[in-house]
């Protein structure tokens, strides 16, 4: 699971859960896998993200180094920033661990890099 994916995941489908966001990450295995750097892509995707959630997720995995807590203006032109963001968004991957719903405490396992977000029928709203 990449952190860009984590930025969009919620547990809102659980019965009694309102937003289910952000999910807390507990990782037992984190890897950095290389992905092609496309600065234009990173620059354009940033406005679509919840940056605070991204920063905290990166921090919880020990990968917040060099990543600003707030996106500065003119970030599109800052190659170094875009590169750091690229790494955090696309290259840092949680291989094993689990996600936790902030409201219900329900855990979602991450195995071989894939978060399992399936719910049983009884758990659904």
């Amino acid at each position, binding site marked *: 699971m990449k952190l860009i994916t984590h930025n969009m*995941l919620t547990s*809102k*489908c659980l019965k009694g859960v309102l937003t289910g966001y952000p999910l807390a990450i507990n990782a037992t295995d984190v890897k950095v896998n290389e992905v092609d750097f496309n600065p234009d*892509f990173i620059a*354009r995707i940033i406005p679509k993200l919840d940056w605070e959630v991204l920063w905290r997720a990166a921090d919880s995995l020990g990968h917040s180094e060099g990543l600003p807590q707030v996106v500065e203006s003119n970030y599109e032109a800052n190659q170094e920033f875009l590169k750091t963001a690229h790494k955090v968004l696309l290259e840092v991957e949680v291989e094993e661990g689990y996600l936790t719903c902030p409201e219900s405490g329900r855990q979602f396992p991450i195995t071989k890099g*894939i978060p*399992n977000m399936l719910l049983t029928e009884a758990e*659904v709203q």
Partner: protein
Amino acid sequence: MNETKKCDRKRKKFAARLKTSKGILCVDQPGPNIVLCNVGQATGFEKADVIKLLDTVRLGEKLLNFIAEKGESHCYVVFNDFESAKLFYDTYNGTKAVTQVPIYMSYVDNVPKNEVICNYEIPEGLKIIENFITVDEEKSYIQLFDWVDESNLKNRQVKHYGYEFRYGSNDVDLSTPLSEKIPEECDALWSRLKSCGIDFRIPDQMTVNKYNPGQGIPSHVDKHSPFGDTILSLSLGSPVVMDWRHHSGKYVPLVVPARSLLVMQGEARYDWQHGIQPRGWDPIIEIRSSNQNTDTKVRVITNDVTQRQTRISLTFRCTRRGPCDCRYKALCDSVQSKLIEDGVASRLEEFHVHQVYEQIAGHFSSTRHKPWPKVVEFLQSTPTGAVVLDLGAGNGKNVLKHRNDILQLAGERSAGLLRECAAHVRGASADCVRLDLLQAPLRRACADRVICVAVVHHFSSQARRLEAVSTIGSLLRPGGKALITVWAKDQTKSNYLSKDKENQESNLHVTIDGINLPIHENRTQFKHNDLLVPWKLRKIKENKLENQSNTTLLRYYHVFEEGELDNLCTSADLVVERSFYEEGNWCVVCTKVEL
């Protein structure tokens, strides 16, 4: 001279095509078999046209067989001897004897044998009493009913006695009997029928149909509730082939001779549909011993045909009131069709969608590699920085790895397929999540594009299909677009159908929680909207697919009618931008409206 050259060139080109597509060789040496190109079933060329050509050169008696395959613009003629064939060839090759287009001919070593073998027995409760009336009686009945043109149905002429049969609702209005009752000339039939041992009530309604050659009647069951359990049909004038079809897929072509009485009772009356194809000829149907078991008789639709003449049929029915009380429910108008309810739907999907995909994941994935061209086309216009969700991504074949300017998120329920997907997207700006479309664990309005290919047809209730499409809508940003595709019920325009399988169908059903689902015969046209499609599982050994299948698994499908997917999108507040049919799928590109 030029014409001869052109003719030769065309013939050679055609010969090459015939060899590769049908395995039939064109030969120079004259023989009894000739292929005619530029004329065939697809161009409306019929046996009658050949006969005309033959009569001019006095070869009428010499024709053994005429074969015009469905959908082809060539056909074959087979002669008794090669001299006749040669005369025909020399007379007509390269000429415009039939149409503006010249007919090119070649001798061929062989002709296709496309006989159709029907293994099913005639419907239970159906009797054909041959020679029920004499030739003289037939003449007087024809005089009695051969009225002057009062055509009121587009396919045939019809007249009613006793009560008017209403074609729109397929019933009669009992409150308005006609002044013209069934003529007393028919009374003689009843005592004769009784002496045949048939138990029936004297009919009070009669419909007379006059079919000219080329006219037919669509497949139908006489509506259950307005009529009693015996329907009789007396044939005058010309024999005809009547097609009998059962909802289980059984098909029986039956010759109904002139002067015969057709008695429909029980299963034949209530559970089968019958109809007559609109054509000027009928195939000759032979009863032969089965190859497997000589005691079993099979019906064979041969390549040979016979011309139809005018046929008049007298159909006799007994009217009745109240709901039907038959024990055949499939075609009964007094039974409300049972809808698949929500609780049943999710169990059905668990057994016949989710579990099946887990089991077939490896084999399934090995049969699907390339992204679908329509997906590539859809994603082409996607701007840099877009978030694309592929919901029901399978093995991720539609994730375009070269697109490092967009985020592609593959959501899939099957763990087996997701493993393949994860391996596929490694190193790309893409990721995988295990999810269920109806419980999508994603933030609202997070996506610029959604693709949902061959997924929505696996939801087994209308409510769940709508929920699936609504979920897609809720995940899209305003202005975002989705490409949704589903299997179409109509497969006639795809490569899915196999020509050899047209009449070969299974009649198995599986019942889940009281829902009776038919099992589809692969590579045939779909006959139901909700059905189970077999997947013949093959194991993978040493990275190779085994040839033999050892297990058959059944996947549930709801196959879509034209416009059905568009309606779902509209109901989910998505604006349909484009809707098209592609290789057996209905596809929609829709947009979430800007706020």
